[in-house]
């Protein structure tokens, strides 16, 4: 597998797994409108994932399509960060995670608008408008809960503390091949961190919350090393396609 394929797969897996996780909120969110909101956000991310997986399959040239890559790869072959595979936790934790992720995705897609990989640039041009809306949705919840009651403030702070250590993995550029950076295909995610932090910290402070000072979590998603929760997520996502290969309806 070339470094180009691996890079596109890592981008794809972040949004695919985030989408699968968000789908789990349907019928469980605190209000009906939020079921709809999280489902729609998940759907946007799934659309982005489908384009990226299709592109990765085409670059690889071994006949794997989006379904083969989503349903028939094993856990060690998934290159997503741990942040997106974490189980829901409190609703406030999900909103903290969505804020951290969408703000990162907004910086990522903005940077990839000028990628020399035309397909990546095209996906970015659509996605950048979508994730901006997602980040705004997360921002409104973080403000509402952080600057709400004593109880909502406490739980929003706890959610932020729980997710914060996992944000650092998003900016670890060591998995991106130097040649991809030189040719302008990829962006070095560490260059996105400063703008990301500026936006996130502004929301946290406006919400009367405290920016966590915890150290980064030990991760390994870009190398295919995942948490226990990933196995359960994949089992749910893949079991139908694996039990009934080629099924359609």
């Amino acid at each position: 597998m070339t470094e180009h394929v691996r890079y596109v797969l890592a981008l794809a897996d972040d949004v695919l797994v985030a989408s699968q996780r968000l789908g789990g909120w349907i019928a469980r969110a605190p209000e009906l409108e939020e079921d709809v909101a999280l489902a729609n956000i998940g759907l946007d991310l799934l659309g982005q994932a489908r384009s990226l997986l299709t592109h990765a399959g085409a670059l690889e040239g071994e006949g794997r399509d989006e379904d083969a890559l989503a349903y028939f790869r094993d856990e060690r072959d998934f290159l997503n960060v741990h942040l997106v595979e974490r189980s829901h936790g409190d609703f406030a934790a999900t909103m903290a995670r969505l804020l951290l992720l969408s703000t990162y995705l907004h910086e990522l897609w903005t940077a990839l608008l000028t990628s020399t990989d035309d397909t990546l640039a095209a996906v970015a041009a659509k996605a950048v408008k979508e994730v901006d809306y997602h980040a705004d949705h997360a921002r409104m919840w973080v403000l509402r809960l952080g600057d709400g009651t004593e109880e909502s403030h406490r739980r929003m702070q706890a959610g932020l503390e729980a997710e914060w250590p996992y944000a650092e993995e998003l900016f670890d550029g060591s998995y991106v091949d130097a040649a991809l950076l030189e040719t302008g295909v990829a962006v070095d995610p560490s260059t996105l961190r400063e703008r990301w932090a500026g936006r996130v910290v502004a929301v946290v402070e406006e919400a009367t919350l405290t920016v966590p000072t915890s150290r980064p979590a030990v991760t390994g998603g870009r190398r295919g090393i995942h948490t226990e929760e990933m196995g359960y997520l994949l089992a749910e996502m893949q079991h139908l396609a694996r039990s009934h290969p080629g099924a359609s309806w």
Partner: protein
Amino acid sequence: MTVSTYARARAVAGTVPDPEIPVLTIEDLGILRDVAVDDRGRVHVQITPTYSGCPAMDAIRADVVEALEREGYAAVTVELVLSPAWTTDWMSEEGKRKLEEYGIAPPSPLPAGGPVPLSLSLRCPQCGSPDTRELSRFGSTACKSLWVCNVCREPFDHFKSI
């Protein structure tokens, strides 16, 4: 191939309704990007999604093929293109008028250079009052948000501007 062959194929493809908002055709929505007919009568259609995850695209693709085959075109291919990214500015004026009649507040034009505009007020498609408020930023489909009119009390969908 003649110009009229092309124009006819484009017109046929353009009549396909959006499965989620059947009052609009894909031509009204601006998601029909191109129709090409070669000298052997093969038709190649390009469509573009409104949102990355729009689940209606597969149905639209099938409907375009069916509509053209019904009109006698034998070899029809439909390609999904992402670039340039769709914007609500591509929706026709006719489309916006039909949306409002149908009870969906149409998208506002995007300001030049700005990303997502903030609509401070929308006109209620039922009673025409500007006294409305947003209920939920996400509605029944990815492209819509949910609003309610403070005067006639009717809820309504808004086609978000992107």
